[in-house]
């Protein structure tokens, strides 16, 4: 990292931009504290006179990227049902594949995936690889990593996307480390750089305070985990055709099992599982759901923050949500206080939501919360504090007492909707 003293004009824009507080002005020019500098290159881009250089040499472990082609989505299932994020990713992958003029392949591991295969094709995949085995129904790191890594090494896709779910973020880094490539976590935006034809992966860092666009120029595949609820899932088209291939996974070391496919070609692909591949015995999978809170799919969310006052105060929030047929959300503060279960938490460390309508009641609008809901179509904010930052991102704001306003809204909506 080098600051060209003669070129530096002392505008100190770089000092302000540095997220790590590593730059300061000395005798009219910028000076770097290498103890704090992480070479994130935020300063390089903002310097108006190009006085900062960060030299990066080509990696000694770079690969021949011309050998790689195709966009892959590693789809995730629970109980053989595809997660919504996977369908979102197929839609997103479709766009990327079209731009690159390449094929979109979906890969899914589980035990009974015929329906899933069809859904993936309908969503936009040109090809689907299905790997079925009883031992693959529940996610475990070792067998999944083995199957996926072997497949990637064999087929050499250029881009691999997976949902940034708990499992996706368990699997992604394991696979990327095994195959020696770069992985970008929790992306909220993907694009193709027109010139270099590489993937631009944009994601939040610094707790949501900073957005970083990451590239993986010399290694393949370019891997990303993608935040659920951000990409748009297009309408499924069940008239679409695509190739579904069943790849066998046989647990016992010896057998190379095979299965008749529903359509297309039988391909024998048998990852061998020894006990060490399984490594982890699943004792229990507990799905905690009294009423499964499905914030990510909700069209309407009524959300409560500190302004609600106490656990009992949430009843006005719940009432409004019920009348609107929506879900109840919450800020991290009230979840930490124990006023409501963490399933309702919206934000950087909670759920990301994209409803048509988000009503924020008694929520100040701290950036960590906004990170989870600022893509809502319409945001209404109710807060007694005129200066609350939530008002900066809302479509309609009400400066007032939610304990009075929310019940009034509930009653009014009840009347109006009851008339329909």
């Amino acid at each position, binding site marked *: 990292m080098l600051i060209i003293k003669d070129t530096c004009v002392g505008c100190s824009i770089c000092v302000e931009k*540095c*997220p*790590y507080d590593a730059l300061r002005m000395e005798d009219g020019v910028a000076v770097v504290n290498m*103890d704090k500098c*992480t070479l*994130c*290159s*935020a300063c390089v*881009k903002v310097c108006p006179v190009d006085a900062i250089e960060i030299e*990066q*040499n*080509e*990696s*000694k472990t770079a690969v021949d990227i011309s050998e790689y082609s195709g966009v892959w989505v590693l789809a995730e299932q629970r109980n053989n049902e595809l997660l919504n994020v996977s369908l979102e990713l197929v839609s997103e992958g479709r766009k990327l594949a079209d731009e690159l003029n390449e094929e979109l392949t979906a890969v899914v591991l589980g035990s009974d995936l015929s329906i899933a295969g069809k859904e993936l094709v309908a969503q936009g995949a040109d090809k689907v690889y299905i790997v079925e085995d009883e031992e693959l129904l529940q996610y*475990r790191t*070792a067998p999944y990593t083995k199957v996926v890594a072997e497949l990637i090494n064999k087929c050499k896709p250029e881009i691999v996307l997976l949902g940034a779910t*708990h*499992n996706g*973020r*368990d699997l992604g*880094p394991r696979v*990327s*480390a*095994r195959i*020696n490539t770069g992985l*970008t*976590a929790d992306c909220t935006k993907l694009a193709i750089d027109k010139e270099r034809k590489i993937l*631009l992966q944009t994601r*939040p*860092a*610094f*707790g*949501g*305070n*900073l*957005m*970083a666009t990451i*590239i993986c120029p*010399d290694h393949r595949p370019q891997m990303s985990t993608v935040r659920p609820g951000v990409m748009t899932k297009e309408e499924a088209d069940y008239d679409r055709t695509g190739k579904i291939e069943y790849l066998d996974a046989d647990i016992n070391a010896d057998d190379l099992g095979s299965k008749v496919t529903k359509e297309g070609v039988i391909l024998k692909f048998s990852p061998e599982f020894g006990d060490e591949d399984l490594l982890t015995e*699943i*004792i229990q*999978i*507990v799905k*905690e759901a009294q009423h499964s809170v499905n914030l990510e799919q909700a069209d*309407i969310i009524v959300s409560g923050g500190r302004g609600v006052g106490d656990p009992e105060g949430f009843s006005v929030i719940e009432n409004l949500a019920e009348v609107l047929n929506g879900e109840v959300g919450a800020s991290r503060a009230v979840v930490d206080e124990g006023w409501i279960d963490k399933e309702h938490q919206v934000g950087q460390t909670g759920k990301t939501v994209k409803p048509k*309508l988000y009503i924020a009641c008694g929520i100040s609008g701290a950036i960590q919360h*906004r990170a989870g809901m600022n893509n809502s179509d319409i*945001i209404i904010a109710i807060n007694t504090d005129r200066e609350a930052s939530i*008002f*900066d*991102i*809302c479509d*309609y704001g*009400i400066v*007032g007492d939610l304990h*009075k306003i929310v019940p*009034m*809204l509930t009653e*009014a*909506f009840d009347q109006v909707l009851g008339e329909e």
Partner: protein
Amino acid sequence: MKIIVCIKQVPDTNEVKIDQDKGTLIREGVPSIINPEDKNGIEAAVSLKEEFGGEVIVISMGPSQAKVALKEALAMGADEAILLSDRAFAGSDTWATAYTISQAIKKIGDYDLIFCGRQAIDGDTAQVGPQIAENLGLNQLTYVSKIELEGNKVKARRELEQGYSELETKLPVLVTVLESINKPRYASIKGIVNAHTTQEVQVWTADDFKVDKNKLGLDASPTQVHETFIPRHEKKGEILEGSYEDIVDNLIKKLRSENVV
């Protein structure tokens, strides 16, 4: 029992604010802390040590100011602290970081359990833990909110988006922990004194353990930062005026006309 804890010193990003007008981060007065989930890792390790005996070694890769974080870890009950610090490590992405730390862990050797925080609050990737596990050929358990040891067996609870799964595996294993797993103890004052007097943080440069120099730092990192920017907000909405009755009326009309409800 030998337990290794990987920690990172990070700016307290929960305290960082954004200057919307300038489009910059306000970093003033934002202290450097041990990454919160790493602290949970230290607590988990020290608790197990108190239950089963053994030693806890804390390791971190960072600039020399990260010594403060390691001293705090010693004050919390860790027995040894190692800082991997070298110009050559600078600019590492998660892959290069995981490689570097794994090589150091290989030198320490003979470990039973490795704790990492699930993710750091500056990078937010959650990648380094699993990548270290891969490099060491260890099984991994991520998003762990509860852990129990029974001889050579590890029983852990792994949080899922809805619910959890309970898993069992054998030592050695790498575990990434969530904040919900425990409440980290306060560094004892006696511990702080000892961390600054009788105990020392070992500093290892790239020459102190076996590393392939081609796999270090910025040059070896498969991912690179293309650019960074502050997220901006376009919406500046309409504050509805009038009596509560008027506001409610007004709002309902607007929402109905826009077909939202």
